[in-house]
């Protein structure tokens, strides 16, 4: 399957947070599982999760990682880097500090053999523009993750699109997260908040507001509007804040809208939280999404990204195996 042309599959180790955080499997053991279960060949890691000492990466770690990946027949696809502007919660980094922090992470990506680094919108277009010479020199593409509540035309994303148009470099790209193309709130979230005992009235308010039209000029506006309404209805903040995830994990972008930025897409997060009894992802239309990327000529990797570990203790390895079966079926490779 891995040698077929077109969209290529892989895993992000983020999917295996239950196995990793519980110390059931080490980083090396997870990589071995990815190879053994045939849920590569692409491998994505989150720097601050996998690597002690990140944003720096030691030569020793880098050489161990590259050797293991090669031995297992896997391919580094993307390194998740973070825009940790608020290391001090009350005093954000300056642009120069953020640039240096990002540069260190791009150097780590190059050392580890990653062709793409996923960055976050909080970096800001100006820092990314100044980071571009480093990315070009080290041959690491910079991919802005477009994650709910953002969409291709959200105001913050448009600022990057304008900068990209001016710079016109193949090292500037985007990474769609399929949570941004949801058609419904995942049942995994609803089961979780019911298990926590959140009132049905609050859950209905989430569902009601989730389907209301979004404002591209203010993608975070729904969380504010939801908080105001929920507080007015007398729900406590601790319960209200549990519901923010519904607006921050799932948004409703029509699958074909990704075609607008298709030539700039450098990686994909195949996000899912749940699989139903037919092996489908409830609330994310993979049968519509994947053909859009085939039609658009996308030939990079998609990491299967199970985020259900927020809501359950189930095995991410098994979830990703099932997700690969689903994607292979839709892509006609089963």
């Amino acid at each position, binding site marked *: 399957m891995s040698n077929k042309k077109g969209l290529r599959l892989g895993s992000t180790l983020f999917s295996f947070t239950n196995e990793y955080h519980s110390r059931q499997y080490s980083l090396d053991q997870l990589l071995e599982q990815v190879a053994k279960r045939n849920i590569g060949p692409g491998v994505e890691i989150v720097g*601050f999760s996998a690597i002690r000492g990140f944003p720096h990466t030691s030569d020793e770690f880098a050489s161990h990682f590259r050797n293991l990946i090669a031995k297992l027949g896997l391919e580094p696809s993307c390194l998740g880097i973070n825009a940790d502007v608020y290391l001090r919660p009350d005093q954000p980094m300056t642009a120069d500090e953020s640039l240096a922090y990002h540069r260190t992470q791009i150097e780590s990506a190059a050392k580890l053999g990653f062709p793409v680094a996923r960055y976050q919108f*909080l970096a800001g277009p100006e820092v990314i523009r100044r980071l571009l010479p480093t990315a070009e020199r080290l041959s690491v593409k910079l991919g802005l993750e477009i994650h709910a509540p953002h969409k291709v035309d959200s105001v913050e994303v448009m600022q990057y699109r304008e900068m990209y148009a001016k710079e016109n470099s193949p090292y500037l790209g985007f990474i769609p997260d399929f949570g941004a193309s949801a058609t419904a709130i995942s049942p995994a979230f609803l089961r979780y908040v019911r298990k926590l005992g959140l009132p049905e009235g609050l859950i209905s308010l989430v569902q009601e507001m989730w389907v209301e039209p979004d404002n591209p000029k203010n993608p975070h506006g729904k969380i504010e509007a939801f908080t105001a309404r929920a507080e007015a209805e007398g729900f406590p903040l601790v319960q209200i804040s549990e519901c923010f995830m519904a607006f921050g994990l799932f948004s409703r972008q029509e699958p074909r809208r990704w075609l607008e930025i298709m030539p700039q897409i450098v990686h994909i997060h195949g996000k899912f939280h749940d699989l139903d009894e037919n092996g489908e992802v409830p609330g994310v239309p993979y049968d519509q999404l994947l053909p859009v990327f085939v039609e658009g000529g996308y030939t990079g990797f998609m990491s299967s990204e199970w985020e259900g570990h927020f809501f359950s203790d189930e095995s991410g390895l098994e979830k990703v195996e099932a997700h690969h079966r689903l994607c292979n079926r839709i892509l006609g490779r089963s």
Partner: protein
Amino acid sequence: MFVTRVITDGGLKGTRAGFSLDIRVPWYRSLPVSTVSIAELKVDGQAIPADDIRFEVNGKTWGLEELRSHPEEWWFVLDSAFLHVSGKKLEPGSEHNVSVTVDIKPPYIPGFFRMTECTKQLKVE
């Protein structure tokens, strides 16, 4: 789920000054201790005063109010941190209901916070 792993099984130990508790970062990645706070620690329903708790990670120890001043100190995602409590002795072998609430502010999501409360019945090791 992080909520089931904040308190490490077998992580309650009697000490000369009182007791210590082994805890884990309730997030998928390492965080600087400046973004972490211990909102509450309760033993058998009784809250421990914040002044009686010290936080240890990487072999270094701080008062809870000092954590915010250390953006350079990382709590690696796989490592335990320890809450050291003075003034409350727990008998070795006795069982207690322990509850801790860890509040995090991931440094790449301005204004976002997440409170994770974990409760476990533990025997003093």
